[in-house]
């Protein structure tokens, strides 16, 4: 899939296409097998069953889907274009604020979604203009700073009537229009066959949100699949591999980077909207660490792949629960309390991020040749 391969002869290209398609099939099959195995294991009595059940629960929760969408955006930034966006949580927050504030103030849902997109669009423009002509780490520093400025501003006590300040906006203020769209019956609990997952069909934290969230993930993945195969997608990879070469071909590198930043940012905003649907809009939930989680998920799954972000997000959440559950179950209870096992799981996540980058920079399904670039 890399540039050089695009230039090779037809049969080689077919071969490469077939390998990457096989890889995709293996990864998708592996993921399905993983979920099925969790569902089966959750019936085992004792702590094994409990761990499997909670892993399955977080694997399909709406927040996982939300992170996946944001990571798909980050993949356009980093995986395809090589932009070091350290402020994806800022894009998510803008989407979420736009959506929740507009509906809270009595606007229809479509206005809310558009408001979120518009905010992310303007944010991307503002960030891109001063930094996209500079070396990559400037973008990193500016995006992380700007995302933090947004969070500080959202938390301002003076803006309480507009953003809800540090408390944020409760879900009940904006969930209504989305729940009204549901064609599933209200307040009826439903258990997914052969699992222990029981949620209301429509209500708070319901199947409806899960259905829509994962549908959005599928659509976004398909969109990126088409983008990556298009001439524009090749241009993105060209910018990533060798900016000067693309410039010498007469392309406007700055414009290409800006387009990538905006499109990835819009995915971030969409992810933010999904992120707050089952819970509430809290600015502190979308701080730096959320950006870092998105990066971990992206690198875990594999940057510059279509399926990597989805795989990475699901694994990111379920591996953490797995680690926490295992430590809880295996260690004698006096050694660590529940909080400490949770923190222990996070420590492992941090170490995992380092190890992935060092030993398997292509992630689970990536192609190592795609990640030779240096920003």
């Amino acid at each position: 899939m890399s540039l050089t391969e695009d230039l090779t002869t037809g049969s080689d290209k077919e071969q490469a296409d077939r390998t990457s398609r096989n890889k995709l099939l293996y990864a998708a099959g592996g993921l399905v097998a993983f979920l099925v195995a969790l569902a089966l294991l959750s019936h085992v009595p004792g702590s094994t069953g409990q761990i499997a059940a909670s892993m399955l629960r977080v694997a399909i929760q709406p927040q996982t889907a939300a992170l996946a969408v944001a990571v798909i955006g980050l993949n356009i930034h980093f995986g395809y274009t090589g932009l070091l966006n350290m402020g994806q949580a800022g894009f998510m927050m803008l989407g979420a604020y736009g959506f929740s504030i507009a509906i809270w103030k009595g606007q229809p849902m479509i206005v809310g979604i558009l408001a979120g997109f518009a905010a992310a669009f303007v944010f991307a423009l503002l960030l891109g203009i001063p930094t996209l002509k500079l070396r990559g780490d400037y973008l990193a520093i500016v995006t992380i700073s700007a995302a933090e400025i947004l969070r500080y501003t959202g938390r301002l006590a003076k803006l309480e009537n507009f953003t809800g300040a540090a408390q944020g906006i409760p879900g009940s203020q904006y969930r209504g229009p989305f729940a009204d769209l549901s064609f599933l019956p209200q307040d009826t609990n439903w258990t997914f066959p052969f699992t222990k997952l029981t949620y209301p069909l429509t209500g708070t934290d319901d199947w409806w949100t899960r259905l829509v969230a994962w549908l959005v993930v599928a659509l976004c993945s398909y969109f990126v699949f088409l983008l990556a195969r298009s001439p524009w997608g090749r241009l993105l990879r060209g910018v990533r591999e060798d900016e000067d070469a693309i410039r010498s071909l007469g392309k406007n590198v700055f414009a290409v980077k800006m387009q990538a930043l905006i499109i990835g940012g819009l995915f971030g905003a969409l992810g933010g909207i999904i992120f707050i649907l089952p819970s509430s809009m809290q600015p502190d939930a979308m701080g730096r660490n959320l950006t870092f989680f998105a990066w971990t998920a992206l690198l875990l799954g594999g940057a510059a792949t279509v399926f990597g972000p989805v795989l990475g997000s699901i694994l990111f959440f379920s591996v953490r629960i797995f680690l926490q559950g295992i430590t809880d179950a295996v260690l004698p209870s006096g050694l660590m309390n529940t909080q400490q096992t949770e923190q222990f799981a996070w420590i492992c996540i941090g170490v995992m991020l380092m190890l992935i980058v060092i030993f398997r920079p292509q992630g689970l399904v990536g192609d190592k040749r795609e990640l030779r670039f240096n920003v």
Partner: protein
Amino acid sequence: MESRAVVWQAPVTKILAAFFLTILTLAAVAAVQPARASASASLCLPSANNSCITSTVRSDSGVIAGAEVRVTGPGGVDETLTTDEAGKFSLSVTETGEYTLVLVPESLDESLTVTNGSVTLNVPRMNRVRAPVFGVRTADYSATTSFSDQLINGAFSGLRLGLLLALASIGLSLIYGTTGLSNFAHAEQVTLGGMLGYLFVNQWGLGLLVGAPLVLIAAGFTGWFQDRVLWMPLRRRGLGLAQMMIVTIGLSLTLQYVYQFFIGASTVKVLVFNPTPQSLGPISYTYPDLIAMAVSVVVISLVGYALLRTRVGRATRAVSDNPALASASGIDVDRVIRLVWIVATTLAGLSGLLYSLVIQRGMRWDSGMQILLLLFAAVTLGGLGTAFGALIGALIIGMVVELTPVLGAPGDLKYASALLILILLLMVRPQGLLGRAERVG
């Protein structure tokens, strides 16, 4: 190789010795101050079976003696305490939970107005000291602090913060200059200074005199260790800078949760003390403030001197300029980078120790993370990779942060204002204040 190694060793030891000697002397001065303060406050000592609620009631004109504080809390605690002549009160409690302290207005002089007379605090477990703060003002308080006075006082606080930021950002800048790495885990090195201070001074009771040098040695060791086991092997492997930056993010996450693992969400203090504010004209300060600032100035000057005048410093600047050329002229680049890591982490540790002593009066697991962006702003503002630029950048950022509330912006935005200035500057002068005008990117 051997002879060069010897040439190398001499200045390094000399600098390090001078460095620690200065710290030692200054720490000695610092250690005297809290000892004097704590002499009259030893009314309650926390132990495994009890926690202490202790504080000083004061207004802007001084401490208030004879004020009454009513404490209610779990286990039927309902006591009224009277402050002593130093304005202090303390209570030993044996149960965890929420305590409410109310300042009895009738016990105060009529010229005083209470701005915050009721404090609710949580005692999470035993062996803790909690210090509630009441707000009391003299009637003519607002009249005495004019705008210019606030401005001067804000500038003083800005200088104090700027100097401490400079300590940490010089290290960050040196690392960037010599290796090209934006180290996101530098903030955790700052936190580490406060954490180690808490461990050595507060928990092990070593005293600041012994504890502070130990903190610096331990912090420096983490730098050596990191470079030895992580960064040098990665450089050898030729891992890209973007990937290395993500490794620092992983390290940052790991360390944050390691701190949380040990101390949870609480704020740990290096020293439990309540320095008496002095005032010089409009400036209000405490002795620890002055000591911290003096230490920073001395250490920063030492680093500056080392960079400009010593062989090691010249070698460091040569590596910053052009590693390949430096290597070709016989400089052992790896050794320079190793030294830079040691110095950078030591400086960050010192910064964290002082930060937790005088600015935040304690350290939380995410305290470093809160100032990381200020550090990056300082470094970028001054010009990525230039140590003196980092100093100037840090002073500017410190001033901006402390002056923003004075100039009328909401206090919550004081960190945001520094970042905004960074973004604006990048639009007009992307290479930073002291950076060379060259094409970056």
